[in-house]
Each structure stands twice: as C-alpha cells, then as structure tokens.
C-alpha cells in the first residue's frame, strides 16, 4: 500500500458525503447503508492485503517540525490488523444503523458521527507522532460524547455522556502531560523511535501519567463506572464503542508501549492490579443487572481488564495473547450488542427476565447469540477459547498466583456469559413474534459472527498471515502461531477449572433468591464522581458569587483591580533606568494646555449635566488633537478633530434620549472610585515612563519610510501604510465599520419607522450659512482626498469631513435629507465602498500578482494606482457608516 492517508480519511469522507446528501441518505437509507458498508469493507480488504511479516512502515508529512509535531503515521502489522477490525466492524455498524434508523431524520447525523469516529480511531492507532496521537485521542473522546449522548432529548443520556466525557478528557489531559514528559525525557516524539529507546531514560512520572490516560479511556478500575453508563447510546454506537473503538484505544496504547514499558518496575503491578479489580467489580455488578446491554457492558469491562493484565505482563507470550484476545473480543462483542438491539427492536425490552426464549423466535439472531456467547464463554472451536487459553498461559508463565487470580475472576465472567445465554435459549411459549427483522439488521449482526467462525476455520492461514505478524509487531516470537491444542498444560487445567467453577456460580446467580439489583444501587465510584462534580460546581458558584455580585460596576472593579495589581508587579520598581527628561523650550505651550486638559477631564468624569458633559468631552478631544499636531502627527490631528465633531453630534442625540429613560443603578461609593482611579492613573503613568526608557529598534517603520516613495509613490507615509503596506488591516477595519452600521439598523430598526419628533425650527442664519459652507466643502473634500497620498489627508479624513457636511445639513433641516434618502444613500455607499475596496485588492490577481499588490499607471508626475482606488473604497465605506448613524441619531435629536 502506498500510503495509509487515504484509508485514514475514508470514513471521514463518507461522513462528508452523508452530510452533503442528507435528504437522499434519509430517503434511500438501505442503498446508502450498502454503499457505505461496501466502502468500509473495501478499505478493510485493502488493508488486509498489506499486512505482512515486514516491519513497520512510516509515512510522514512535516507539520510543525520545530515543535516535534509531524503528521506522521506508522503502520505495523498490528496496527494494520487493528485497522482492519475498525473498518470491518465500522462497515457492519453502519449497515446496521441504516436499517435500524431506516428513513429516520436521526440517521444522517448518526452516520456522520460514526464516520468521523472511525477516522479518529484509525488516527489513534496509526499515529507515529505522540501529539498527533493525542489529537486523535481527544477527537474520539469528543465524538464518543456526541455518540453516547445521541438521544440528547433524554436527561440520562446527557448526564451519562458528560460523565464519560469528563473522565476520558481528564485522562486525556494526564496523557498529554505524560507525552510531553516522554518527549522531554527522550528528545523525540516519534513512537517508533521511543519504542527503540532505553527504559532507564524514561521518568516514572511520564509512565504513570500515560497509564492513567489509557486506564480512563479503557474504563479500568477505579474509572470503570462510566462504561456501563455509556450504554444509553443507540445500539450500533454501543456495539462499535465496545468492540473495536474507543475503549480499545486505551488498551491499544498500553499494548503498543508494553514491550518497552513493562521493563519498568511499576508497570506490571499497577496494571495487573487495575485489571483484576476491573474484572472483579464488573462481575459483581454484572451479576445483579437484568438489562441485557448492561450485562454485556460488564463483560466488556472484564475483557478490558484481561487485556490490561496482558499488556501489564508484557512478555512475548502475553502479547501473543493480547492480539488474539483483542480480536476475539471485537468479533463476539459487536454481534452480541447488535443482537441485543435486534431483540429490543422486536420485543420492546432489554430485560433478561422478560426475554426468556427470545433467541428461539429470531433464527438468525439466535444463531449469532449462541455462536458469540460460546466465544465469550471460551468454548473450544471459538476464538474465545484461544484468547482464554493464551491469557492463562501467559499469566501462568509469568506468575502462577496471577494466573489463578485470573482464572478465578474469569469464572465469574463465564458465568455472566451463561447468564445471558440460558434465559434467551430457554423454552417459553408465551413470547412470540411474527414480524421479521429488517434484512440489514440481521445481516449486520451475522457478518462479524461469521468472520469469527472463518477466522478459526482457517486458523493456520489466519494465524500465519495476520495474527502472527500482528503479535510479532508487539514483540511476540515471530515463529509462534495460534493452535487449539498444546497438550495438557497448566493453562488448560486452569481453563477447565474456571469453566467448572463458572457453572456453579451460574447456578447461584440464576437462583430466584439471588438478591436483585436494588433501586438505589449505585456503584461507589459513580457516587463519588457525582459528589465531586457537585462539590466543584458549588465551589465555582461560591467563588463566582464572591467576585461577581451581579453588578457591572463591582465586576469591573474586580477585573481591573486584578489586572492593575499584576501590572504593578510587572513594573518592577527596583529596576529603573534613568529617564532623560528633556525640557526643551516650546513645551511651554504644552505646559499651558495641561491644566485645561486636567480641568476638562475632571469635569467630564464627574458631571451629570448633558451640556457640561458635551463641552468638556469636546474640549478633551480638541486638546488631544492639538497634542497630535504638536508631536508631528497631522493626519491624526485631522482625524481626531473630525471624529470629535461627529461624536458630539451623536452624543447630543443619544444623551437627550437617555435622559428621558433615566435608570438608577447602584454605583460604587465615591471614595472607592476616587482611590481606585487615582491608583490606575499613577500606575499607567509609571508604566509609560518606564516604557519610554527603552530603546526601540524600528526596522518595520524604517522599511516603510524607505520604500514609501520608491514602490508606493506616496510621500505621506501614514497614508501609504493605511492604503498600501497594511491595506489588508484597513480592509478588515472598514468591514468592521460596515458591520457596525448594519448593527445599528438591527438594534434600532423598529424605531426607525416611527415618525420624527415635532420639528423644531432651525435658525435661519444656520440654514443660509450651511448652504454656503456646503458649497465650499465639496471641493475641499475632493482636495483632501486627492492630496492624502502625499500630504496630510486621505480617504478617512475626507469621509469624516463629508459626513460633517451632512450633519450640518441635517441640523439646518434641508428638505432633501429625508430619512429614506439618507437610508438609501448609506445603503448604496456601503455596497459601493466595500466592492471598490475588494475590487482594488483583487485586480492584481488578474495580472498574476499577489493579493493587494499595487498596480500603477504613470503619466509624467501623476501616479494613478489601485491603492488610490482602495482609498476611494475606504472613503465611501466610512461615509456610509457615518451617514447611517447620523440618520438614526438625528431622528431623535430633533
């Protein structure tokens, strides 16, 4: 195979196609199901032919090499075999889902999620880079949250889905930290290189954290409780989650790392303990459940426990057992879950006590249940037998005590298997159904069971071609193969003993006096988790109430105070370079202006009267315009002047309106405000003084200054920056203005239809004078616009001046400036402005240049170019924006 990338995205592509043809998929569910299944099976077949004895293959695309993150995939015989299982069972599950939700509106979303989920799972097992693996890992957590909570109209679905999500995400966080530590310890994030390195150079913390991550994902004790709860998802989801994906990601990681990590003294004891505890708790819980799916979920927990033990042991023999156990479990658990779905669909219940004899009614489902349950119980011709024998063999050769513990707990699991199969097969004449199942559901249930039979029927071949290479990729002996008969070994004896014991246990469990599941029965860790979450919520509430009292003022004070305190520490008063304070002569004027600014600011900050507020604010704005002018920024001074004028115009309208609906809110006490604001002012002053002692390098500005004349043909560098060098920023800015203009229409739209307030007669002097001013304004605006490239001026300023002219016209009540006219005006100007600006940006593309490169036409000393066009677009957009606001606010101010 050339590259696994295509196979990796195949399920995601299926999801994309489903998303594009939702109605079609819903209408022809069966055809869609067949197509999707064919694609999945095709992918599995391609993958299957690629498995060989050859070692791993790497495929890498650089992503962020400096950080050690690459889109690197690693295909070993094991991960390829696992991929086959993912795609094969994915195909079955999709087929099942299409028949299960035939014509249902919920089908397309489910198929999309399942497709993405399969891709994410393939990503987990094929990633070579640790961080890539982590990304896919988190993707499976997120998607399983959506899948488990698929019936999101039910409270219990939402609750259990978020429980699974929180636990696996917390584990994911631990895993990430573990990966980072591993990366630091070994200096590589590539899995293949990590596996070839030395265990002594890996810190214990990394190993513990990675174990934690894998254990949460694979629902190992004490994080086991989320998995039985996660069965609230639809049946195909449960089948997929429990067989080949999600929970298998954790044991996959453990198995992959086992050959190296099992040399660490902590690895085997920790995982063996967790595994045994998981099996034990799952048996205890499963014995009391009567829900078929719940019992099956408990057997999944047990299987995961066994897999964890095998990965924990990590010897070559254990890895041999690991591969066959993983395969056998996937191939019997998926059909069992799907069969449970069949029974529920026909008999309307999952309660084992009500399903007595159900398997006899549905022939196909019945056969599947028998075959799969026999595999679960581990009887001879089934793959389950192999997995049980190799499990016992590996643990026995590692430690007989562990093997006995495994056999004892296995007896409980086998009993769970009997508990499922005996009621379903027993005679019961009351239960009957005449309806047949949809063919898709039967077929999807049957296929994996047949595959399991095929696997054992052709055992020498499958062992040699697929299972053997897969196991040897994990460190097992390449010459080893799977056989049913090894002669009389301790493992065989233990297996027989477990079977005999399980019959006894089954008798005890099936007795009517066996205590049933009490209503309030909730596992201990489940309750602990709920308690923990509730406590966290309460703490968050308390902290929130402490800081946020429901008033914006106190909230602001807390936020600003916090930021201020932080910056005060950042100030670092001990290190203070001497600031060269220059008192050159002309700053005397500045000294004269400063008291005025102080007075105006203080008035603006305290006054309640509209008039004094307007005057003081206008004064502050004017003085700042003067400061701009003083410090060599004429463009800023002009912009500031015009913006201040328009702000005053808007404020008059707004404050007059706000006065009428005076709302009283609780204010912070004045002394507090005073101290707070003085502190803030002093802090900012000190910060600026400190920043001024720094020597700035200005390579960017120097570049602009140097290139402005040569390549942009403009002497006014500020304007050239705006319309040429940084035109993309300006484009963003005028788009923001356009959005703000439309926002005003949305906020005030209803009010716009109201009639204007009674007309106040404007002064006749103003009416006459305004016309005269307007007459002069037109050439002035053109002149300001034109000269902008070489002298102070430009589109922004010209637009503000033009808007000022319109404001004047509105104040003197010109007949032409009716609200509909203004609306139309601003509407069309906005469209024209944005289109011209965009056009000027895109024109260079037509002649093979990059976006926004200026194209110039030179006529003697006259330079015409696209930046000029862009400036026109800016002019029109800003004018349209101003006109729109003038219109809204004028209605009110009259």
């Amino acid at each position, binding site marked *: 195979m050339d590259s696994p990338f295509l196979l990796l995205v195949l399920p995601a592509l299926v999801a994309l196609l489903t998303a594009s043809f939702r109605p079609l998929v819903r209408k022809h569910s069966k055809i869609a199901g067949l197509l999707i299944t064919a694609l999945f099976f095709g992918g599995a077949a391609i993958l299957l032919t690629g498995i060989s004895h050859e070692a791993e293959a790497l495929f890498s695309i650089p992503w962020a090499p400096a950080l050690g993150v690459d889109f690197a995939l690693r295909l070993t015989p094991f991960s390829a075999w696992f991929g086959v299982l993912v795609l094969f069972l994915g195909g079955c599950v999709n087929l099942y889902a299409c028949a299960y939700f035939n014509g249902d509106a919920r089908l397309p979303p489910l198929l999309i999620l399942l497709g993405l989920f399969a891709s994410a799972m393939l990503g987990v097992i094929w990633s070579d880079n640790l961080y890539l693996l982590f990304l896919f890992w988190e993707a499976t957590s997120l998607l399983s949250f959506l899948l488990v909570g698929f019936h999101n109209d039910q409270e219990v679905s939402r609750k259990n889905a978020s429980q699974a999500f929180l636990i696996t995400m917390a584990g994911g966080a631990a895993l990430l930290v573990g990966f980072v530590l591993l990366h630091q310890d070994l200096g590589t994030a590539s899995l293949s290189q990590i596996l070839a390195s030395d265990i002594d150079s890996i810190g214990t913390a990394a190993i513990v954290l990675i174990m934690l991550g894998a254990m949460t994902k694979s629902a190992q004790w004490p994080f086991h409780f989320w998995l039985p709860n996660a069965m609230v998802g639809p049946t195909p989801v449960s089948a997929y989650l429990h067989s080949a994906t999600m929970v298998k990601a954790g044991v996959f990681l453990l198995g992959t790392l086992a050959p190296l990590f099992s040399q660490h003294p902590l690895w085997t004891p920790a995982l063996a303990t967790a595994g045994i505890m998981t099996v034990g708790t799952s048996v205890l819980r499963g014995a009391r459940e009567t829900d078929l799916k719940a019992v099956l979920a408990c057997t999944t927990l047990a299987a995961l426990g066994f897999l964890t033990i095998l990965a924990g042991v990590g010897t070559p023999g254990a890895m041999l057992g690991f591969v066959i156990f993983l395969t056998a479990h996937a191939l019997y658990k998926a059909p069992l879950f799907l069969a449970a779905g069949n029974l529920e669909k026909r008999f309307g219940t999952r309660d084992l006590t009500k399903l007595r004899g159900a398997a006899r009614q549905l022939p196909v489902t019945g056969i599947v249940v028998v075959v799969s349950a026999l595999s679960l119980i581990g009887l001879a011709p089934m793959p389950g037998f192999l997995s049980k024998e190799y499990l016992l063999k590996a643990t026995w050769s590692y430690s007989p005590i562990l093997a006995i513990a495994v056999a004892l707990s296995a007896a409980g699991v086998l009993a769970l298997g009997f508990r499922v199969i005996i009621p379903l097969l027993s005679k019961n004449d009351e239960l009957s159904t005449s309806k047949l199942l949809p063919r898709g559901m039967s077929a999807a249930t049957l296929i994996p069971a047949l595959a399991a039979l095929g696997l054992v029927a052709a055992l020498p071949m499958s062992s040699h071609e697929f299972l053997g290479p897969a196991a040897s990729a994990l460190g097992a002996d390449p010459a080893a193969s799977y056989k049913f008969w090894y002669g009389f070994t301790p493992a065989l004896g233990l297996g027989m003993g477990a079977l005999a014991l399980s019959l006894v246990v089954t008798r005890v469990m099936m007795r009517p006096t066996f205590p049933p599941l009490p209503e309030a029965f909730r596992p201990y860790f489940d309750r602990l988790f709920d308690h923990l979450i509730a406590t966290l919520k309460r703490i968050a509430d308390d902290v929130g109430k402490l800081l946020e009292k429901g008033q914006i003022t106190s909230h602001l004070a807390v936020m600003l105070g916090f930021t201020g305190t932080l910056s005060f520490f950042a100030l670092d008063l001990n290190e203070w370079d001497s600031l060269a304070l220059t008192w050159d002569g002309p700053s005397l004027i*500045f000294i004269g202006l400063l008291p005025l600014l102080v007075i105006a600011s203080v008035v603006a900050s305290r006054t309640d009267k509209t008039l004094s507020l307007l005057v003081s604010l206008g004064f502050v704005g004017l003085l700042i315009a003067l400061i701009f002018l003083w410090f060599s920024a004429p463009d800023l001074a002009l912009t500031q002047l015009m913006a201040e004028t328009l702000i005053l115009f808007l404020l008059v309208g707004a404050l007059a309106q706000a006065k009428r609906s005076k709302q009283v809110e609780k204010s912070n006490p004045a002394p507090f405000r005073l101290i707070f604001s003085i502190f803030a002012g002093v802090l900012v002053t000190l910060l600026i003084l400190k920043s001024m002692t720094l020597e700035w390098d200005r390579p960017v500005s120097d570049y602009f200054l140097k290139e402005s004349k040569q390549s942009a043909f403009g002497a006014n560098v500020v304007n050239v920056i705006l319309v040429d060098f940084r035109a993309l920023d300006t484009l963003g800015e005028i788009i923001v203005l356009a959005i703000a203009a439309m926002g005003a229409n949305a906020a005030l739209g209803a009010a716009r239809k109201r009639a204007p307030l009674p007309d106040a007669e404007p002064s006749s002097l103003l009416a006459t004078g305004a016309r005269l001013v307007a007459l002069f304004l037109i050439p002035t605006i053109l002149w300001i616009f034109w000269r902008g490239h070489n002298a102070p001026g430009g589109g922004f300023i010209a637009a503000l001046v033009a808007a000022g002219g319109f404001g004047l016209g509105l104040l003197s009540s010109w007949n032409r400036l009716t609200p509909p006219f203004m609306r139309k005006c601003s509407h069309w100007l906005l469209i024209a402005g944005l289109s011209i600006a965009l056009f000027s940006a895109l024109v260079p593309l037509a002649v093979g240049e990059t976006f926004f490169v200026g194209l110039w036409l030179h006529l003697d000393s006259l330079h015409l170019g696209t930046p000029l066009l862009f400036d026109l677009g800016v002019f029109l957009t800003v004018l349209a924006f101003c006109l729109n606001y003038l219109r809204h606010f004028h209605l009110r101010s009259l």
Partner: protein
Amino acid sequence: MELLIAITIGILIAAGFYRLLGGTKVDAIIGLILLSQGANLVILASGGLKRNAAAILDGTPVAELADPLPQALVLTAIVIGFGILAFLLTLLIRPTK
C-alpha cells in the same frame, strides 16, 4: 516632555476609570471615550515623540522623521473607536420592552 505626556495619559485614564465605575450605561460610555483617548496617546508615545518631523517625505533624512507606524495604528484606532462608540450609543437608546 515625556513626563508631561505620561501625566496627561495618567489623568485621562484616571478620569476614565472614575467614570467607568459610576454604574450607569452613560457612565460606561463616557468612561470608554476617555480611556480610548488615553490609549491612543499611549500608542503614539510608544513610537517616540518628535517635534516638527511629520512622516512626510520631503528630503529630510529618514531617521529624523517621526515613526509612522504608531500613527497609522492610532488613525485606525480613532475611526474604530468612533465606530464602537456609535454602536454603543445605539444600544443606549435602543427601545427596551
């Protein structure tokens, strides 16, 4: 001169905070106006302050000209600030039910 501009900014910031903590919507808007005036001056000052050196190329050595980049930023900031203010004012006078 640097000291004076720093004090000016400090005063504007203090006045802005005082108003901002007042509690009414009008207070918040006026406070923001004052704060943004102060912030514009901060950006301008960060490029270094020069007299009689507008960034207009007329033969003066480039190194003596004022830094045009902060000026371009402030010009944008003034217009955007105006836009935000205008939008805030619509929210102020928006008829509430």
